[in-house]
């Protein structure tokens, strides 16, 4: 089985994980127009390069980030969300965690 290197639990079978979509900054909750929410909700990366994605380890309830190639399926890097660059999320999402 394909192995996902989980930052918390080490290498585990991919069937223990759930894909959670692309890592994108949340629009400003107070002021973002509908069009920005539509963009955030329905449009995401679907190219042929490396994507930064949310992944969830189901048994331990742990969300983390994986950088995965969308053609070769190679997982290049996995890390805790705290290691995300500052512009990857915004304040509200950080406060939520």
């Amino acid at each position: 089985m394909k192995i996902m290197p989980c930052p918390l639990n080490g290498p585990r079978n991919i069937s223990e994980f759930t894909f959670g979509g692309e890592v994108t900054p949340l629009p400003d909750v107070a002021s973002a127009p509908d069009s920005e929410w539509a963009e955030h909700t329905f449009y995401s990366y679907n190219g042929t390069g490396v994507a930064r994605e949310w992944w969830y380890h189901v048994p331990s309830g742990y969300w983390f980030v994986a950088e995965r190639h969308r053609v070769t399926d190679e997982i290049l890097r996995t890390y805790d969300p705290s290691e995300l660059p500052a512009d990857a999320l915004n304040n509200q999402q950080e406060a939520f965690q």
Partner: protein
Amino acid sequence: MPFALLKYGLNKDYPFEQDADLPAPTSLKPHYDAVIIGGGGHGVATAYYLAKYHGITNVAVLEKGYLGGGNTARNTAVIRSNYLTSEGVKFYSESVKLFKDLSNEFDFNIMYSRRGQLTLAHTDSAIRAFRQRAEVNKHFGGKTELIGPQEIRELVPTLNMNPGHQPVLAGLWHMDGATARHDAVAWGYAKGATQRGVELHQLTEVTDVLVEASSSSSGGKVTGVKVRQGSAEHTIRCGVAVQAVSGHSTLLAEKAGFQLPIVSYPLQAMVTQPVKPFLDPLVSSPAFHCYVQQTGRGEIVFGGGSDPYPLYNSRSTLELKEQLLAHAVELFPFMANLKLMRQWTGLTDMTSDYSPIMGLSPVENYYLDAGWGTWGFKSTPICGQAMAELVATGKVPELIQPFSADRFSEFRQVNEMGATAASH
């Protein structure tokens, strides 16, 4: 022959064989009234109806590989219209009607076979959803009803009525459900279209979409496409372009300069050795994430939902096969003894509401036939007709208006998530 085969095996170029029913390839013209990108079922169906109903024959269908060799050849050939929304049921019902007469229309056997499609309910909530789907279907003239365990036993005597401690409580019996040979549908349309003067160019890849600034559209206006044939590059001008490249919709749209609300997932399916006919209806179970049907040749086709995460790759994974087959064997325990003969993977362009995207794009005269997820084959005839009307008139036909790309930014989705044969 073995030597010739070996030569092809070692050759990097795909051997090109000319089909007897299709005209020999000609060289590309510098201008076409309409260019259709993608020579799968949808592309050739659009070309066919353009020529047949609208008299537009200065049309080129451009196909990167070979006719019907993409996802047209990778689906599991299910024809049904037992969807959930009024918009969806209306649209797919038209397709089911058109499929019935295609063999006569083409004078070419597409092996259409009306078997009925049975979806199993294992929970009370599934029964409630099925009741709604049955009523919506009847309202639009379909033959769909909710049936109980006794009727299911009569329809499918080999079915395990108590699989995996989730007893079969009821079924959605869709009498219009059918199957057909998917390749033959593409071949029939291609034959009919080329006989009427449409050009089909295989091994012709569109490498770029040419868009010029336009006063009436912020996305610009399409003027032509760049193509590659082997090592030769050509530029073709066109009045109208249609993209019908399921599995790669977002990548082509990007070349035309806009984004689509689509994420592409692989979908794996497989087929067993042939056995005696025992299974007439097409059987699916959303709770067990699988559907099972027997082909005219006796093979059993297994399909399920798309893979759990997006990828542009037709690789095979053992974990998905094990999971899918474990469920199929729960439903039909004796199948545990069968051997798998082939497996394959297609690419499904999934939209978040599980409905397609048809109609206008941000680029003027560039029309979309995209987002065909796991529901593309069954809509081939009606989508071809609607897209042909759009190309010929420039107006979006009423039937496909609900499926515009704008629906996502306007929050008017057509939610068919609950009506997929195998939940995703």
